[in-house]
């Protein structure tokens, strides 16, 4: 496990600039993701999740830390591995699980599927399943903010493997030249699908070691510590809102599960998962809360309420009907329909 070269320390020095309310929020978000993803996996084993799914178990701190620092109006652009970021922006567990189960209560009523979670009202401007495609799209949303003088930031999440596709390069250069208020977040979980990222790059860090190619600062952080992530996000957002341009942040993390539902992740070297589980972000954060004097009770209460939310959501999804077939032909075009002819 590469020791992350932190820019910002975690909670070690008992630096309480974050404050208890925000810390409880960051904790809650991580637990919501953890429980929902774990549930998604269980439902998959019961054959109730259809299509594919890509879990963020082990990567909760990145989603929580960024979402925790985002304001209303800030926009998230996610990948197929987007459940975590979608939940972190406040979308209900039911709507997410409903989409995974391809039910009518799903976020897009089953039309999009797990890889395309979108909730415009929460600023989740889509989840994209073609590697790299959303980086330029996030630039465009940021361009609109710049053009209009809106102060919102576009935040674009992607994986380590995504740094090798052309669109990554085009977006980074474009954002830097136009000084766009966009923050690029690389979640380096060490793997692409089944191949380690280190096998396909000639440098140690896929994103951080490329920042200079775009005139950007090298930022490599511990992605398993939500406080570190949160502080880094705040700085990048402030920079963006101040008109100083984009940031590229590489978060070191690890996925506890396979790449997608079908992957048992046998390619991992022995002991690697166990090593990383010692640095489980939820565990780290629970310790952090205690360090800052939060009572076990308060923590247990959050755990219990999240568990209940996920249980209730599960039941609601199980009970929900499948989508009606008449929506197949809606929303191809803006008139609501699908007519390509008169």
């Amino acid at each position, binding site marked *: 496990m590469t020791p992350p070269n932190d820019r910002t320390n975690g909670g070690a020095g008992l630096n309480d600039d974050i404050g208890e309310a925000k810390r409880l929020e960051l904790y809650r978000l991580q637990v919501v993701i953890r429980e929902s993803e774990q549930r998604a996996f269980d439902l998959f084993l019961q054959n109730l999740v259809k299509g594919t799914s890509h879990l963020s178990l082990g990567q909760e701190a990145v989603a929580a830390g960024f979402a925790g620092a985002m304001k209303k109006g800030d926009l998230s652009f996610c990948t197929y591995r987007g459940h975590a970021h979608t939940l972190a922006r406040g979308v209900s567990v039911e709507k997410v699980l409903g989409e995974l189960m391809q039910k009518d209560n799903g976020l897009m009523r089953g039309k*999009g599927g797990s890889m395309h979670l979108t909730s415009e009202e929460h600023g989740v401007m889509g989840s994209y399943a073609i590697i790299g495609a959303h980086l*330029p799209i996030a630039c*465009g*949303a940021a361009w609109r903010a710049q053009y209009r003088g809106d102060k919102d930031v576009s935040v674009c999440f992607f994986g380590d493997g995504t740094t090798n596709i052309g669109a990554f390069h085009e977006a980074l250069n474009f954002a830097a030249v136009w000084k766009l208020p966009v923050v690029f977040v690389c979640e380096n979980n060490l793997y692409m699908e089944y191949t380690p990222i280190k096998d396909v790059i000639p440098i140690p860090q896929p994103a951080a070691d490329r920042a200079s190619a775009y005139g950007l600062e090298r930022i490599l952080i511990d992605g398993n510590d939500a406080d570190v992530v949160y502080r880094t996000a705040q700085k990048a957002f402030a920079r963006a809102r101040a008109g100083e341009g984009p940031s590229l942040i590489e978060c070191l993390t690890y996925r506890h599960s396979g790449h997608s539902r079908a992957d048992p992740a046998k390619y991992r070297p022995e002991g690697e998962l166990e090593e990383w589980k010692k640095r489980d972000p939820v565990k780290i954060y629970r310790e952090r809360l205690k360090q800052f004097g939060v009572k076990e009770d308060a923590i247990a209460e959050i755990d219990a309420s999240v568990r209940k939310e996920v249980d209730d959501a599960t039941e609601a999804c199980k009970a929900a009907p499948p989508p009606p077939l008449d929506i197949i032909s809606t929303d191809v075009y803006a008139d609501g329909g699908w007519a390509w002819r008169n």
Partner: protein
Amino acid sequence: MAEISYRDAVTRGIAQEMARDPDVVFLGEDVAKPGGCFKATVGLYEQFGALRVRDTPISEQAILGAAMGAAMTGLKPIAEIMFSDFIAVCFDYIANEFPKSRYMSNGQLKCPLVVRTANGAGSRFGAQHSQSVENWCMMIPGLKVVAPSTPRDVIGLMAAAVRDPDPVIFFEHKSLYNSKGEVPDGEIVDTLGSAKIVRPGKDATICALALMVPRALEAAERLKIDHGIDCEVVDVRSLVPLDTQTILGSVARTGRLFTVEENPRLCGWGAEIVSIVADEAFYDLDGPPVRITTPHIPLPAADIMEDVVLPTPDRIAETVKRSLEA
């Protein structure tokens, strides 16, 4: 009323919309200060300023991606892809992003943008700078696709495209930039999805697009003069939405269908129209529907070769005559 060039119509069409709506922004390679590599956007930078008319790096994916992100969040971007052949380097946006985000999000996201691009042959540029690729877009569900043949249509369809809430791919024909036509004064706004009968006739229907429209008209004149064959020429104008009513109506009257396409033979819009007519108006047809196309080859550069591979008025007239006489 004034006679202006197709090239100037592009500028005027964009200017009309930018003047109307401050959310209309324009980006592309060399489009701002230089006024575009075909000089079709000269003056927009001066008129609308550096924030609305922007030069980009050579990054077609960034151009289209940025247009999409801006469109999604409230702007109405017009993006230029310098030559339509280059759609291949940013095809993911055309094929997978623009046209699917509304559907996949169950209507939450929108993508009101225009991609304008110089399409077609005639400049002796060779295989990578001369293609007619409107089919690359027509076959993708969720896009709208237009290709004007006159200065007036350039302005009117540009306005319609910019005002349309869906992604529109707007094909300008390189070999028409210098052509001229009468254009009314004042605002011009057309509608997408309407074909135009540009020459009425009773013996056969000829559907054509862009540069092929004047050629089909010329062929029709010759057929009339030389052989007394009276062709109806339909300027298809909009491939999606497709004005099947006008086309089917025309074939119902004439009994014969010809399509004149600049693109290579396989899976062109001609095949689509032929298939629709063959299926829905089979019993209206008095003989086989015939496609006239560029052969299924990459385009040669040399003038002498380029000139013979595109459908010419001669070839169109000859094909129609032979087929009607068969």
